[in-house]
């Protein structure tokens, strides 16, 4: 029982940090760079992706014994595309302003390789509970990554967060941060940090192992 709990926790947490879809796997770059010019857009995109990924993973895992492997990719895409259409219309009806800002990037969630990747690599092979946990973790990691990028870019590029001005009138916004180059710049710096962190962690673990051997 204990072991199973550990397993669930691991499937959930790996998407948030260790295997973060954006910062470690570097997947889903198109929405990542395109809609993170403000924190609210990033969150709306993250939520839509969350809904699509968790819903698709649940269905794919539930039907994994019925879907013949020859047509599995087509079935995954049908399932994903249905959820995307549902998300598209729901956003259009509930929050037309956000939908306007995200524009073409909502339908493009279908082409987010992170989602199809999770179905192929995980949901189609594991029981529903683990598949949903994995999807929640991965989508959560994606949402977190989008939000951090969106928040950094909005704060630096517009001097605001969620549209609220943070600095006085004397703040000169660093406009390039909310333009496409700012997306690449911010993402590059964050990836640099993640790789540096991983390097340091590996070095640390190697030191510990060596010390243990010596002692």
């Amino acid at each position, binding site marked *: 029982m204990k072991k199973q709990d550990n397993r669930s926790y691991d499937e959930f947490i790996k998407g948030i940090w260790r295997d973060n879809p954006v910062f470690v796997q570097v997947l889903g770059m198109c929405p990542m760079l395109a809609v993170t*010019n*403000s924190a609210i857009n990033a969150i709306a995109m993250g939520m839509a992706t969350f809904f699509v990924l968790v819903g698709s993973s649940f269905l794919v895992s539930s039907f994994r014994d*019925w*879907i*013949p492997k*020859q*047509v599995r990719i*087509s*079935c995954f895409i*049908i*399932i994903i*595309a*249905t959820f995307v*259409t*549902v998300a598209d*219309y*729901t956003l*259009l*009806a*509930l929050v*037309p302003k956000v939908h*306007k800002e995200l*524009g073409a990037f909502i339908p493009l969630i279908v082409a987010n390789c992170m989602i199809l990747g999770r179905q192929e690599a995980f949901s189609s092979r594991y029981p529903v509970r683990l598949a949903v946990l994995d999807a929640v973790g991965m989508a959560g990691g994606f949402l977190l990554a989008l939000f951090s990028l969106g928040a950094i870019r909005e704060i630096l*590029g*517009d001097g605001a967060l969620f549209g609220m001005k943070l600095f006085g009138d004397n703040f000169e*916004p660093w*406009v390039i941060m*909310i*333009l496409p180059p700012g997306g690449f710049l911010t993402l590059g710096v964050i990836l640099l940090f993640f790789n540096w962190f991983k390097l340091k962690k590996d070095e640390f673990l190697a030191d510990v192992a060596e010390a243990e051997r010596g002692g």
Partner: protein
Amino acid sequence: MTSGSHMETAGPGSLRLVLTLAIAGLISGIAIIGIYESTLPTITANKARELREAVFKVLPGVSQMQQLVFRDGELVAAEELAKDEQAVYGGYDPKGNFVGYAIPAAGPGFQDTIGLLYGFTPKDKLVLGMEVLESRETPGLGDKIYKDAEFVGGFSALSIEPEIVAVKKGTKARPNEIDTITGATISSKAVVRIINETHNEWSVRLPQPGAEPPLGETEPVDTGEGP
């Protein structure tokens, strides 16, 4: 399920593959139609409300509106639009007196088409207000054409004869000049150009001041909540 190994070697029959995809497609189709049908009323109402709000915003003092089309050489009230017909919206004060037209216009901006609505009073040949309905202008720069209150405010009581002229910020001297936005010169000039072009197109079709179609008894569009 006879045996997994048999399935591995021979594979499922074509019928099973076709059926799987057909069923998946059917369920997906039903789900999509369901969500479309259930959100359509809200989406239509949202769009109608946006347009109505925009009409009242670009025509101050207006409380009723009706849709007008240019048909057979004159401007008439019409509920339904035929294909290729463009509508303008007549705005009327609470007593039913004509105030001005709200004219939809569209044209290329810096990124993509800018769609906007402007209020126009034929009596004084003045633009009364401007509201951007649709734009993909650069966030933080071009989007100031609707976020910059000073620029949007510049379109109240702006003379459109002979045409609106966009000038550098702070140099507005004549009633037909408007300050462009620093950092969004192209987008603000695009707005001015779109209004000028649309005005030239419509000025020949609009009736003489005073001869506007009266507010129809049948279809007064109320200011209140939509259906």
